[in-house]
């Protein structure tokens, strides 16, 4: 019986069809997806912090409105992803507990600080740019709810990346001090953005299984290369340089070559020793605790309302 079910699962994968929540799936497939989607969801809501940091100091009303919309989108993306993860049979409250206790991770990129306004540009252009490169590939992930959440997220992310580029491009054509601020932000965010794609293929033990399950469609190094190839000409267009003396076009490969990535730094930050790990977690737990009364009030309101008017729900389905 189990082997029939496994054969059915394999058949769906091999014919490039999607797995849906109530289908049979191997426990390891389910566990891998829960871990990956939860980490992705956590990254979206932790990612609100470095950008939220600049809402009150945005340089104009237009930039402020844009930034608020973007941070709200990140919250929305987190909710799409928690929703997708819950279809695998986990509770959202448990996922938040796992984040708050450090048992589940979020993307290490958010453990870097946003020191200047230009960092908001660099986060949008580089960090969201790298995320989009990853997420476009995930739109064809074998798990239906995750793929559908990705389609929605990718549509919204392209605004994020453009507004980021627009901030940096504006600064890069501004006063010498503004130009220096833009370049400084790019210098700090370039390498961590390249690390977002994860360890090189030969040091990424789970990649092969995820590729076989069609959760992942491209290897870490392929996606990183794709991002580099897209981004280098964009940097040139804005008049910004990328902090890699070995970066150059390789005619033979038809790709840009890059210098070595500092993987020791990557693992240091993953393991908790980045500039902001502690601050991000403290803020997240604090926000959750301080929101408790709002959640309780909403429940009390719903209870009171349902007692008062049993059946008068607004509207009918027509």
């Amino acid at each position, binding site marked *: 019986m189990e082997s029939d079910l496994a054969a059915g699962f394999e058949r769906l994968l091999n014919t490039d069809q999607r797995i849906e929540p109530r289908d049979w799936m191997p426990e390891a497939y389910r566990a891998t997806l829960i871990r990956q989607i939860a980490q992705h969801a956590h990254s979206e809501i932790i990612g609100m912090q470095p950008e939220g940091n600049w809402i009150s100091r945005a340089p104009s009303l237009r930039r402020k409105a844009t930034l608020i*919309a973007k941070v709200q989108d990140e919250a929305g993306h987190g*909710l799409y992803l928690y*929703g997708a993860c819950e279809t695998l049979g986990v509770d*959202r*409250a448990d996922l938040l507990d796992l984040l708050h206790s450090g048992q589940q991770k979020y993307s290490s990129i958010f453990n870097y600080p946003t020191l200047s306004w230009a960092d908001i540009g660099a986060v949008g252009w580089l960090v969201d740019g790298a995320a989009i490169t990853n997420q476009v590939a995930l739109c064809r992930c074998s798990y239906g709810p995750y793929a559908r959440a990705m389609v929605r997220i990718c549509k919204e992310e392209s605004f994020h990346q453009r507004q980021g580029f627009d901030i940096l491009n504006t600064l890069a054509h501004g006063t010498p001090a503004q130009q220096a601020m833009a370049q400084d932000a790019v210098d700090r965010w370039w390498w961590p953005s390249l690390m977002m794609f994860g360890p090189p293929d030969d040091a990424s033990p789970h990649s092969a299984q995820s590729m076989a399950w069609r959760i992942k469609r491209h290897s870490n190094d392929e996606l990183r290369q794709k991002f580099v190839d897209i981004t280098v000409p964009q940097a040139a267009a804005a008049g910004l340089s990328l902090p890699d003396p070995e970066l150059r076009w390789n005619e033979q490969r038809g790709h840009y070559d890059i210098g070595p990535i500092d993987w020791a730094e990557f693992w240091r930050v993953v393991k908790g020793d980045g500039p902001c790990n502690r601050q991000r977690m403290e803020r997240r737990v604090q926000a959750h605790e301080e929101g408790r009364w709002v*959640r309780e009030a909403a429940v009390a*309101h*719903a209870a009171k309302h349902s007692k008062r008017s049993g059946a008068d729900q607004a509207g009918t*389905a027509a």
Partner: protein
Amino acid sequence: MSRDWPLWEVFVRSRRGLSHIHAGSVHAPDAQMALRNARDLYTRRQEGVSIWVVSSSAITASSPDEKDPFFAPAADKAYRHPTFYDIPSEVQTL
């Protein structure tokens, strides 16, 4: 017993003339708050002109285990499709 608020499925009509399509789900303590949460989550860019929220527990679904037998009655009825019928080539607009 879950510590989460009840789950609601969200259906959005993107514009007049189209039917509501499943967009995703939200947690909320009651239907009114589910509607507001769904508005904030699924229509931030004018994706909808109307939203339904339905308690997830109110949905009855066909079981994936029996999907072959459940949908089998339709499989051998090709005569329900117009392409089943051979029409002489000189006959137009049929």
